[in-house]
């Protein structure tokens, strides 16, 4: 690489010419510049990692911390705060070490594979109902608004025991947390105060009158040492789960359907062989070229990554999606292979902080895909794939809408 190229600072997130296609820079960066200088929406600089092995190494290494609030850590969003990575909500919960593991295990027990499998019939029933309503309204329809968004929101509200009817409020609070460019610090702070006070009210109501929901169970639950979660931790946990259950899976449903319909041979192969649903979901997660921001980490000591020595004070951004297209990790990485196995993609991260709700996300994605294949085998895009547009400025990537007919 020439000197001038190495000095070039890319703006991050990197834009892409087409909604479902990866930015051309990913391949060049993996190839020539695995530790790249990037400028975040705040104007601060960070080091972007795009190779599979490097991303996996960093996310598994506790020296790369989640302390984005540290003095000297790059600020992520345009207003200068860290948004979801650095708000009061994130900092209420233990961010690393034993404290994090204790919290993770208290909450993780409610997200085991078996518990999630037990939710699947209910999720499919809800998906069926939403498909009924979409079909009744007629096509063309926006699959994102009709199915992709309402389903995960209903699931997480049901699980937590908060009323689904408050979903407009949740959507606003979630958006202020996850948007990197749209809101002022004052608006974000106000929304977060409201959100925290709403959740504190929910916790108080469950404490007075426990129900059959996760919030009530967490209040009653104790860890191995007999300690429960504090009220602040309960509020932070409830907020975190609600936000995490909102945008991520909701957008992934639209993107998954978009990817499978953009090359309709993929869809037809699934219609013909439903046993591919599980591996097709994993492949859609790997292949997602528009996952959002990636995972930032802060380093307070010197560590070598990808042949470069990172000095203390470095903020690293891991692009799991660029890593998921790494030819050294996946044969035919640039093609969707619905039967790919094994598929150790990094869409949920890796290591001690890998997505707590991944079994739930997988269950929802498999359920919704199964229902769509059964109910609407003739499903197709109602616009050319090149006309699909991305949502801009969110920590979580998605399509603005997914127009379909059947």
């Amino acid at each position, binding site marked *: 690489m020439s000197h001038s190229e190495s000095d070039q600072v890319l703006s991050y997130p990197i834009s892409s010419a087409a909604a479902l296609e990866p930015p051309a820079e990913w391949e060049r960066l993996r190839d020539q510049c695995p530790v790249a200088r990037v400028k975040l929406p705040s104007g601060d600089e960070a080091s972007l990692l795009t190779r599979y092995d490097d991303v996996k190494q960093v996310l*598994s290494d506790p020296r790369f911390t989640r302390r984005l609030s540290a003095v000297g850590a790059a600020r992520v969003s345009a207003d200068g705060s860290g948004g979801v990575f650095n708000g009061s909500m994130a900092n209420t919960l233990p961010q690393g070490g034993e404290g994090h593991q204790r919290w*993770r*295990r*208290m909450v*993780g*027990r409610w*997200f*085991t*594979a*078996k518990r*999630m*499998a037990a939710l699947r019939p209910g999720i499919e029933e809800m998906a069926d109902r939403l498909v009924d309503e979409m079909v009744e309204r007629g096509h063309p329809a926006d699959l994102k608004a009709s199915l992709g968004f309402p389903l995960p929101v209903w699931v997480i509200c049901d699980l937590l025991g908060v009323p689904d009817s408050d979903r407009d409020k949740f959507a606003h609070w979630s958006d202020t947390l996850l948007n990197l460019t749209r809101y002022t610090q004052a608006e974000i702070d106000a929304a977060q105060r409201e959100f925290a006070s709403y959740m504190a009210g929910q916790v108080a109501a469950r404490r007075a009158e426990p129900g059959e929901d996760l919030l009530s169970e967490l209040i009653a639950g104790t*860890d*191995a040492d007999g300690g429960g979660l504090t009220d602040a931790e309960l509020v932070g946990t409830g907020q975190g789960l609600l936000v995490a259950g909102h945008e991520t899976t909701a957008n992934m449903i639209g993107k998954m359907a978009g990817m499978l319909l953009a090359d309709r041979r993929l869809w037809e192969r699934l219609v013909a062989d439903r046993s591919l649903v599980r591996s097709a979901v994993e492949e859609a997660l790997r292949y997602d070229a528009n996952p959002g921001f990636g995972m930032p980490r802060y380093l307070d000591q010197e560590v070598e990554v990808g042949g470069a020595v990172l000095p203390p004070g470095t903020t690293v951004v891991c692009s799991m999606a660029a890593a998921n297209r790494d030819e050294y990790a996946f044969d035919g990485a640039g093609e969707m292979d619905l039967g790919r*196995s*094994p*598929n*150790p993609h990094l869409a*949920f*991260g*890796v*290591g*001690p*902080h*890998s*997505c*707590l709700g*991944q*079994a739930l996300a*997988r269950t929802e994605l498999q359920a919704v895909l199964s229902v769509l294949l059964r109910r609407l085998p003739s499903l197709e895009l109602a616009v050319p794939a090149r006309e699909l547009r991305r949502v801009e400025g969110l920590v979580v990537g998605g399509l603005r809408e997914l127009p379909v007919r059947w």
Partner: protein
Amino acid sequence: MKVTVDEAMCCGAGQCVLLAPDVFDQRDEDGVVVLLDAAPPEPLHAVVREAASVCPAAAISLGEGA
């Protein structure tokens, strides 16, 4: 095939249980992996290898001995 699991590293993702429910389970109290069969029969080897390779915490190790 000899399977071992590292409970301290486990992050409770549950991929192993979904792939090979005869070999892996999760504890009800914290979601941590439980090894049901440390020497699974040959027909399960492929799926156990898959479980080890997709474990996000790299908590499953495989040996060919014993």
